[in-house]
């Protein structure tokens, strides 16, 4: 069952990401990004990170996507079709990065698998309580948590300030 779920969500994520990269129209790519984000949220759930998966749905699929769709609506309909010749140098560069990633990830995966050679069978437990305690623990992540709150306030004010009309550059 969990194998089936992993493959379903992994396919959703990878196919969505490929559609973002290759589709010709911006609105289609934006909705393909939604598909990829939902796939990643499902992968979090298969990893036992229920809180992160839910946050991903709320913040990414709910918030960031709506922001992006607003930007799509407020900007003109331009041709975003990519001439295929531009894929050649970009594809070569991406392939090179991919080979680097494959070697790095291969090494890390081998090291981890020899570290836990018996197979790591952690039970899947709800994580929200543990994350909340770590956020409000002075030995843990209290200060980064408060700093994130301040950052969000600054971002709200700053985004409104920047997006205001009637400003000469």
């Amino acid at each position, binding site marked *: 069952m969990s194998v089936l779920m992993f493959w379903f969500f992994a396919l959703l994520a990878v196919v969505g990401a490929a559609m973002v990269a290759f589709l010709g129209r911006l609105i289609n790519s934006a909705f393909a990004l939604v598909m990829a984000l939902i796939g990643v949220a499902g992968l979090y759930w298969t990893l036992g990170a229920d809180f992160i998966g839910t946050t991903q749905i709320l913040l990414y699929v709910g918030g960031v996507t709506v922001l992006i769709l607003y930007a799509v609506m407020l900007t003109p309909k331009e041709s975003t079709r990519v001439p295929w010749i531009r894929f050649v140098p970009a594809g070569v560069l991406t392939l090179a990065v991919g080979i680097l990633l494959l070697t790095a990830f291969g*090494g890390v995966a081998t090291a981890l698998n020899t570290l836990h050679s018996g*197979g790591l069978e952690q039970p899947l437990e709800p994580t929200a309580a543990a994350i909340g305690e770590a956020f409000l623990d002075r030995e843990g992540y209290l200060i980064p948590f408060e700093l994130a709150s301040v950052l969000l306030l600054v971002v709200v004010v700053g985004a409104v300030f920047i*997006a205001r009309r009637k400003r000469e550059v």
Partner: protein
Amino acid sequence: MEFSLSPDNISAYLIVSGLLFLFGVLTILTRRNAIYILLGVELILNAANLNFVAFSRFGGFGIDGQIFAVFIIILAASEAAVALAIILQIFNNYGTVDLTETNLMKK
């Protein structure tokens, strides 16, 4: 180097996140529309996040990886808000969001 594609092994998750990262890089490299580049950045951030959560489960490091993932999601949301405000302002000033046309600093 050994890869196994079963989900009780970390390499399956690493491969998925690597693919997400590569598609994000490809999006950023091929597109000239600013919103498309933002989509690519979101893909890359998600790939990094997936790695954090996967290592949190398979690396035996406890819950710290998931907390980092929460902070990355917060930062990504902030970044998207500010970037889209900037994109709107670029459109107001240039009438386009094509990044090859925005050359005020070159003049």
